[in-house]
């Protein structure tokens, strides 16, 4: 490990790709491995111990739906024993109050609960699961009654773009102290469903303005974490806080990724926790070193004073929209390909009426 290499602070553990919901913007890959390929309990526990020794402070237990793992409490317990801060990212479907209390006594620190819309009919249609909305209300009640801190997250797209403020109100009503409002990012399932998900520019703009206004208005009552669409920004987001710099992902089968979409970049060599320790992977896995630091950058990043502010933006977006994963993210106004950001949203014909989704499914 070179002297300059800093240890990671965060681990996103995708415990399983199994999930009862079918959200059409799911961040999981299109091709998902099934239950038979999932890491066993002992291997996940080793991964968490290695992560703590490496310098990780927070673990995000995600999926799929992490509740689909029957050993979830055992995994939380190991994290807690290692001093790791645990965040359960869940749809709430499949939770019972008894199981929540079991997770809390295992040491769970925080719950992040997804909502799909501000009303039951809309939310259940987006999730492709009848009754999900009412279940989430119940789950939120259990979480707050257990005095576990609650964050609500919502993804914005055409079917709910007019309800952004109502979803913030719902989050408050559910007892959340934080709410994450993120506009859909178009890769994987969301890219496949783009014409059904993309809101009009005017609607997206209005939602962004409304949430920004609420951020100020509701300060002190609820914290709003707002992820706006890339095409509004002058400079790109510091995707992942810089490639292989602060966090990493482990997939259900044990592949270690610098970000959850990294496998969309062809030619990268990923290592697995089945073959290597996390310390070896963090330091030496070819995929981690491919875009680490600034040496890989092209112009205009190479001579840009912002190169250690945004690290050239998102590698996956650079590949998808500029055709080259080491190019400047086209979201940047300095990118010679910046015009494709606008074109990517304008060229899509938005069909009228109820959007028809291809629901996310395993297999």
């Amino acid at each position, binding site marked *: 490990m070179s002297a300059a290499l800093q*240890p990671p*602070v965060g681990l996103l553990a995708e415990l399983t790709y199994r999930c009862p919901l079918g959200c059409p913007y799911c961040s999981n890959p299109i091709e998902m491995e099934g239950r038979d390929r999932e890491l066993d309990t002992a291997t996940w526990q080793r991964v968490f111990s290695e992560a703590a*020794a*490496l*310098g990780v*402070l*927070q673990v995000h237990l995600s999926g799929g739906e992490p509740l689909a793992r029957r050993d979830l409490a055992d995994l939380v317990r190991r994290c807690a024993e290692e*001093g790791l*801060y645990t*965040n359960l990212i869940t749809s709430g479907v499949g939770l019972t109050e008894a199981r929540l209390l079991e997770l809390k006594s295992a040491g769970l*620190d*925080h719950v*992040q609960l997804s909502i799909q819309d501000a009303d039951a009919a809309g939310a259940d249609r987006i999730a492709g699961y009848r009754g999900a909305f009412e279940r989430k209300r119940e789950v939120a009640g259990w979480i707050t009654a257990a*005095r*576990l*801190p609650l*964050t609500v997250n919502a993804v914005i797209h055409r079917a709910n773009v007019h309800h952004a403020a109502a979803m913030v109100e719902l989050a408050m009503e559910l007892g959340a*102290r*934080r709410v994450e409002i993120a506009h859909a990012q178009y890769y994987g399932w969301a890219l496949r469903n783009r014409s059904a998900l993309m809101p009009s520019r005017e609607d997206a703009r209005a939602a962004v303005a409304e949430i920004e206004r609420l951020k100020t208005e509701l300060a*002190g009552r609820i*914290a709003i*974490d707002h992820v706006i669409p890339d095409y509004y920004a002058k400079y790109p987001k510091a995707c992942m806080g810089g490639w292989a710099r602060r966090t990493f992902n482990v997939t259900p089968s044990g592949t270690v990724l610098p970000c959850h979409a990294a496998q969309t970049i062809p030619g990268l060599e990923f290592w697995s926790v089945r073959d290597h320790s996390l310390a070896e992977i963090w330091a030496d896995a070819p995929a981690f070193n491919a875009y680490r630091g600034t040496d890989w950058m092209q112009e205009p990043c190479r001579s840009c004073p912002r190169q250690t502010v945004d690290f050239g933006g998102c590698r996956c977006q650079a590949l998808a929209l500029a055709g080259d994963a080491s190019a400047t993210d086209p979201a940047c106004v300095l990118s010679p390909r910046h015009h494709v950001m606008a074109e990517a949203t304008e060229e899509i014909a938005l069909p009228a009426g109820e959007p028809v989704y291809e629901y996310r499914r395993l297999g």
Partner: protein
Amino acid sequence: MTALGPDSRPRLAPGVRLRHDGVRDAWVLLAPETIIDANPVAVEIIRRLTGDATLAEVVDDLAGAFTAERSLIEADVRALLDKMIGKGLVEP
């Protein structure tokens, strides 16, 4: 702006904890989706926020431990707690 009286018993909010990071040899405050570096002064204050001790007791304890003027310590404590309450990290 603070609602803190001398009899307040401030404590860390649920989901917020202070821990020593052995890998980096530093103290950090872990909170939902956030990691905050805690400087040595903040650490001394935060570790006394038990929910049992009153603000006055916290200040007395610090004044005894660090032989500094009580009014200066109280100003430091209030400044930190105001900030932390504003961020939802401490409950007054």
